[in-house]
């Protein structure tokens, strides 16, 4: 008797399912910076009201987001690692990639600035100086867009940070926020996208030490997943979402998003 009750309750709980999922919904495989900075909380209500399409965001590192999309576990990909995105499209997983918006990366460090990189505008020089000083540097180490960018910067300096791995070079293998928490906890320099930094709540005595280098440019792209490769994709809704982001309305909405009076993302979709 009691077992029947258990069974029935369990079944009811499971079958109840999510609260009446809306008719149209898509999954966006996204980088974390756009989610953690609150951009989606700003954009999605506007889009959902206009179209009635519910957008479910899975925020993971760019590397994992691309992997998930390759497994057909998303309808739209929104990340920031252009070479990987192009490879994704060329392999037939995406219908096409479009520039969406940009911001930039910065290198943050403690007020004491042990490597003396404060105010530098050349990212490579700054990284080389950090390595030379043996000052702590916390890296994502997770194949994310930010990590890929960081690695490409190191490649140009001639320093192999892996040689200092575990010593001055600390790979957290975590998301941007977790890496910032860890880096700040150990007094290390961290390279982060500006949007995450501005909206990050645990800055303590950290400040931006290096910014303004063209190489720190951070381009975001949007890609609807290819329905020919992934038949489960809701391509109509996916296109609607991507098109809206790229439209004048969507671009204006992106540009209007501010945290603490600072604009986080700068729309740069090609003129249609």
């Amino acid at each position, binding site marked *: 008797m009691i077992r029947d009750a*258990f069974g029935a309750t369990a079944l009811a709980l499971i079958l109840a399912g999510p609260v009446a999922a809306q008719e149209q919904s898509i999954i966006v495989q996204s980088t974390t910076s756009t989610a953690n900075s609150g951009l989606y909380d700003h954009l999605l209500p506007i889009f959902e009201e206009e179209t009635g399409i519910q957008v479910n965001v899975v925020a993971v590192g760019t590397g994992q987001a691309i992997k998930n999309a390759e497994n057909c576990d998303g309808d739209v990909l929104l990340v920031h690692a252009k070479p990987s995105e192009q490879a994704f499209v060329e392999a037939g997983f995406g219908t096409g990639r479009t520039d969406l918006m940009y911001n930039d990366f910065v290198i943050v460090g403690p007020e004491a600035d042990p490597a003396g990189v404060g105010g530098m505008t050349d990212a490579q020089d700054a990284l080389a100086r950090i390595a030379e000083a043996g000052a702590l540097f916390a890296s994502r180490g997770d194949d994310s867009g930010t990590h890929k960018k960081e690695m490409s910067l190191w490649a140009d300096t001639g320093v192999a940070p892996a040689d200092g791995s575990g010593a001055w070079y600390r790979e957290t293998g975590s998301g941007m926020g977790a890496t910032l928490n860890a880096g700040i906890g150990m007094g290390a320099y961290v390279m982060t996208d500006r949007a995450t930094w501005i909206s990050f709540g645990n800055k303590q005595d950290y400040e931006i030490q290096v910014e303004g280098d063209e190489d720190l440019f951070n381009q975001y792209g949007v890609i609807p997943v290819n329905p020919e490769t992934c038949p*489960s994709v809701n391509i109509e809704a996916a296109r609607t979402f991507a098109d809206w982001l790229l439209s004048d309305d969507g671009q204006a909405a992106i540009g209007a998003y501010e945290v603490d009076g600072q604009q986080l993302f700068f729309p740069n979709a090609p003129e249609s």
Partner: protein
Amino acid sequence: MQGMGEALSLALQMVWSGDADLLEIVLLSLRVSLSATLVALLIGLPLGALVAISRFRGRNLVLIVMNALMGLPPVVVGLVVYLHFSRSGPLGFLGLLYTPTAMIVAQTILIAPIVAALSRQVLEDLHAEYAEQFRSLGLSKVQSVQALLWDARYSLLTVGLAGFGRAVAEVGAVIIVGGNIDHLTRVMTTAIALETSKGDLSFALALGIILLVIALGVNAAVQSVRMSAARMSYV
């Protein structure tokens, strides 16, 4: 400990104002973890009982495996479930990835071994006491198992609590198969992970305090059942 005080007042404030988002997250946490616990009980109890009363070749091996599975890493469970439920996986056609059902499945896999291993121990001890009497009464195996389960019901409640505790506290599995999607699959632990990664540590801690209070509430509810049982001196 300034952060702790701030978190505590934030937690009280959220609860007091009846924050709708918070309520949604709390209810989903409870729904997912209670469902997983119930399913794990339905699977783990008969399994534990069967092993408890059976003697067969390789039984020790089964015990070692059962006990070892109690330590399954949530991330690994999450990954395995993800690979199955992914659109490109063998169960992708079900469309369950990034749904509460996928989270229930992952947590069930995580805690069913706990229920099986712990209930096996409880029932084996009780069976040592009852076995000869049951055989004298000519009970079948099924009848014996039913009687054991019923007579051990209050100890098995604790087993269920152990499973629930593990389920409601884990983040590694549900964040992979649920995706931490706002208003769809976000639960207490994934929300805490998110707020931590945003650097909003007091908010994360406040959520943690609320999770702790919920766990306390569930345990207190079960304990009161046990206490009433003790008053009736069944134990």
